[in-house]
């Protein structure tokens, strides 16, 4: 009887581990509207992003005809969604996205997003040399089909949104189940 009991417990534990998602969500996602007394100085076109002392080049990207966000092929370069807000603007989401890894090049610059904690600093340097500093306030992991559309919102208070992939990997389709999203606010 005890052998059967141990066996049942093992099966139950294994199923539970498969079903329960690891805790990837920390912090509070910033959703405030823009400040009433908005600045008028222009933002900067991003050229690099620095996370944990590592500088990564940034290039403008747009939405592909199939509706997906186009990303630079090299995981060592990240894309700035160019219809979105500029870093340093008074309102809107500045969206930077990059590959977590690639089959050929290995881990990407944004693999670190999975580990970023609330309070960490991120700096975006503009093409004109100006720096815009941010502080991480939240990290979320969403099923890809459930990625909130408002991450691209240009009407909220200024924030930086960093996106990559995460979760389980499907070798057949060579794609991940989830998006990892880090939110940061200007400091």
């Amino acid at each position, binding site marked *: 009887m005890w052998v059967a009991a141990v066996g049942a417990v093992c099966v139950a534990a294994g199923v539970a581990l498969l079903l329960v998602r690891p805790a990837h969500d920390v912090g509070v996602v910033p959703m405030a509207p823009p400040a*009433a*007394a908005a600045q008028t100085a222009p933002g900067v076109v991003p050229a690099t992003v620095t996370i944990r002392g590592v500088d990564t080049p940034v290039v403008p990207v*747009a939405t592909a005809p199939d*509706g*997906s966000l186009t990303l630079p092929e090299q*995981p060592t370069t990240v894309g700035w969604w*160019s219809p979105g807000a500029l870093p340093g603007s008074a309102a809107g989401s500045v969206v930077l996205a990059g590959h977590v890894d690639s089959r050929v090049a290995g881990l990407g610059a944004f693999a670190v997003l999975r580990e970023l904690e609330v309070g960490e600093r991120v700096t975006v340097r503009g093409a004109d040399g100006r720096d815009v500093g941010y502080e991480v306030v939240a990290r979320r992991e969403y099923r*890809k089909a459930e990625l909130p559309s408002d991450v691209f919102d240009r009407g909220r208070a200024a924030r930086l949104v960093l996106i990559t*992939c995460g*979760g389980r990997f499907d070798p057949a389709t060579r794609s991940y189940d989830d998006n990892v999203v880090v939110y940061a606010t200007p400091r």
Partner: protein
Amino acid sequence: MRTIVNPDGVLPATMIADPDVESPMSYRRGRIAAATLIGSFALLGASACSAGTDADAPAPGATPLPTASASAQPGAGGQATEAQRAAFGQAHQGALALIALGGLGTNQGDGDQVKGLAPDVTSNGQALDQAIRDQATAQGVALTDGLSSAQQQVINDLQARNGQPFDQAWLRAALDMEQQARDAANAILNDPNASPEAKKAAQDALAGLDALKTRLTSASTSSGAADPGSVNAGTGGQAAEGDDVLPIALIGGGAALLAGAGLYRRRSRA
């Protein structure tokens, strides 16, 4: 007389003269309709044409969409009330923003779509502003030239871009303005106290805005400015979570123990 499609403007299609039949009468009729609509917006205290960065978050200093009845009367002596003056001011700012957006598109537009839309945005903004000025003068309202800080931020940010990033952001800004005008027109239609003339003008405006939205949306999509629906950012698998090994081992081991226990029990009975 054929239906005039408004390619861009905040207010009604009838503001634009038929390019094939340049008729002072049709243009005047359009300006009257626009002025009627503007007057109705003013009476409603609507922020009909204020161009912020989000239709749901009005530009700083802008008042919310109408709450007053369309039958509200001017103040004593026929002078405009504070709410009406504010509405005129916001409409004027919206028209100026439209003119600024059009001019920027003409000067900095990279692709043919923006270069083609921009002059129409400018001319519509100018026509709209003239109608607003005429109405304001008739009601004794003095207008101050100048954009709101939110509108100026949009213009400044656009000026910082060039090439495709400029075109994409310009199209998004134009779509924002279109949405705000649509919200203002729908507010008129949904107001039970709005005059038939105001509702007709709002209906005409919506027809024009529908056509404008179609053109802007098409241009926005083809230029890559539409909101992405998905982000696929990983093909290697090196960063995958490695937590499937343990649960699979537990399930496999547990199943083996259950099978073993079952087999032992059967043999014992035999």
